[in-house]
């Protein structure tokens, strides 16, 4: 991947900021709206400095009223603007469900192709900071059920920047899922401009023994698990889906043809999850290439607890992934 030639390391939040700023310089129709994005400089400092550069007409603070400003983004997008709507947390987007799930993804279809909705909704997704059950949603499992939208879930600064630029130029509503736990992560990002297309998974680690498929933050858990398993001589291939809709099953199937074993790792709940969908599609397309069933590592099927040890017990982690790989490969 292009990141190999990069000479500088920047934080995940800086990568997102660069993507937004570059696109706002390129296209005046792009604006950023959300809670505390302007004067406060971003609740997580993602938009730091953007108010100074672009002014209050394009970096816009709004009150805590997600249903209102998400709907405002839908209307502005129907008129041909390119809104980036920040949810401080995707957990808060649930109060805007009518706008983001009922309106944005259906507008093109309902209008018979007349009104597209090129809006990007972005913000922090998932658990991990002891925030309790209402602030800890990993929404991808729920939202992936809805046709008409794109779901993007990067795991590295490089992917975040390239995918967000594509998201802003996309004519469909895009849900861009970040993670507060990763915003400070550094990674190589080239100076020169690049875009990453949707629907193209990235093989973050090559290996021939077992395929690990994941999305977003748990990709790092998979990489950790793969390193440990490699010490025992088990080489895992780690596939980062990068986008959930569209889903790049071709890359996953190709890997399974080589490894014959698969574990899917998903930070959302197991029931009707992205992991379930990936597993089902694997059965539909590659049953004959499997030497065991597909194993899933998801969050436990409980509301996210506050207590640190309970929360850690709930979430996917390298230990759970190692165990799943061992089970998948009949090693325990």
């Amino acid at each position, binding site marked *: 991947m292009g990141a190999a030639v990069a000479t500088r390391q920047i934080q995940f939040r800086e990568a997102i900021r660069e993507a937004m700023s570059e696109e706002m310089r390129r296209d005046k129709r792009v604006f950023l709206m959300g809670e505390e994005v302007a004067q406060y400089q971003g609740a997580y400092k993602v938009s730091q400095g953007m108010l100074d550069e672009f002014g209050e007409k394009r970096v816009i603070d709004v009150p805590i009223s997600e249903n209102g400003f998400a*709907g405002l983004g839908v209307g502005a997008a129907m008129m041909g603007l390119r809104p980036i709507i920040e949810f401080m947390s995707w957990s808060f987007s649930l109060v805007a469900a009518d706008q983001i799930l009922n309106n944005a993804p259906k507008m093109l279809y309902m209008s018979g192709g007349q009104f597209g909705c090129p809006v990007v909704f972005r913000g922090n997704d998932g658990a991990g900071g002891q925030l309790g059950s209402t602030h800890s949603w990993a929404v991808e499992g729920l939202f992936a059920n809805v046709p008409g939208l794109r779901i993007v879930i990067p795991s590295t600064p490089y992917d975040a920047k390239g995918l967000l630029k594509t998201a802003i130029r996309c004519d469909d509503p895009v849900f861009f899922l970040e993670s507060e736990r990763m915003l400070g992560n550094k990674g190589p990002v080239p100076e020169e401009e690049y875009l990453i297309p949707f629907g193209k998974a990235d093989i973050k680690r090559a290996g021939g023994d077992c395929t690990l498929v994941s999305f977003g933050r748990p990709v790092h858990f998979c990489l950790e698990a793969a390193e440990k398993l490699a010490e025992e001589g088990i080489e895992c291939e780690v596939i980062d889906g990068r986008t959930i809709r569209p889903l790049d099953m071709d890359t996953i199937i190709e890997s399974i043809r080589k490894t014959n074993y698969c574990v899917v790792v998903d930070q959302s709940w197991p029931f009707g999850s992205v992991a379930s969908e990936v597993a089902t599609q694997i059965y539909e397309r590659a049953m004959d290439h499997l030497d065991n069933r597909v194993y899933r590592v998801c969050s436990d099927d409980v509301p996210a607890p506050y207590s640190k040890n309970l929360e850690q017990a709930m979430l996917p982690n390298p230990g759970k992934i190692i165990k799943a790989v061992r089970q998948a490969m009949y090693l325990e």
Partner: protein
Amino acid sequence: MTMTDPQAVSQPVERVSAKTRLKWLRDMMLIREFELRTMQAYQEAKIGGFCHVYIGQEACAVGCIAATNPDDPVITAYRDHGHALARGMEARYAMAEMFGKIGGCAKGKGGSMHFFDKRTHFYGGHAIVGGQTPIGAGLAFATRYENEVLGQGKKRVTLCFLGDGALNQGALHEAMNLCAILDLPCIFVVENNRYSMGTSIERGTSMADDLSTKAAAYGMPYFQADGMDVCAVYNVMKRVVDRMRSEQRPAFVEISTYRYKGHSMSDPQKYRTKDEVSEYEANDPIRRLADALIEAGSLNEDGFKELNQSVRDEVRDAIKWAEQSPEPDPATELYSDVVTEPFGAYGPTSLPEMCEHEPGEAPESP
């Protein structure tokens, strides 16, 4: 700042030419005839789903939209047939949409509650009560942004229609607050027909006898109009639209109206008396305007009959168009317009190019 604006409401009625009023009369008659035939087609099972007709409220859509420019965005809720026709959508696109045909305004994918027409800047019927109001704020945001950031140098206002039922949805209050703090030129037009489905406004809404309080809460000027009189609606709206176009901020208008028919085709209407309905029917906006024009010598009974015949012909043509238009072909239409690139259900068939999508036009012929 005065929250209510009695001055604007009490100003003398603006003179409107007989020619214009004759056009409004025809527009209202077209909506009435369209809806009567819609009810008939629904009973014949040519129209499916829910169907909410606009009979009785014609003066609202016609009077309000007459006060706007053709490129001012209009958005409404699910009782949208009248607004679409008043805005200039062709009756046959409207009827074919309800018939679920490819010749409909949304290729049969939207239905009665989801009319859209890009050509007439009609941003849709929206079927979740109140859900259209934040979108309306977004349309107003975009017009202001186009002017101030993109430098297109044109001031537009957005008409956002809602029913009295939407007064109690949080979405409306978030939208009104956003419009107030961001100075968005969105005119919230409440068509107060007194019932949200079967719940009277008194049972469902606080301060039902003084909706100016809703506007006052957000510092918006409030206006009121008699929705059974198209000239009164126009006169109030003309002032509101002109003022908000120049001031570029939101306003709140309450139009008192009444629907003669039930909430939807399946409504037995046990929540109101026949006398109540008759009382409003006696004050019918179409008859009222026709009588005024006849009295002024601008129309005679023959002229009225001609108008009647011409709207009947137009709606008959719409029905014919709808009946003859093919059903959408699942092979091409089921998966088109889901996203701008056809990924289908099982991942990409091709990688997306950087998109330069132009949303499609409504079809020209069936």
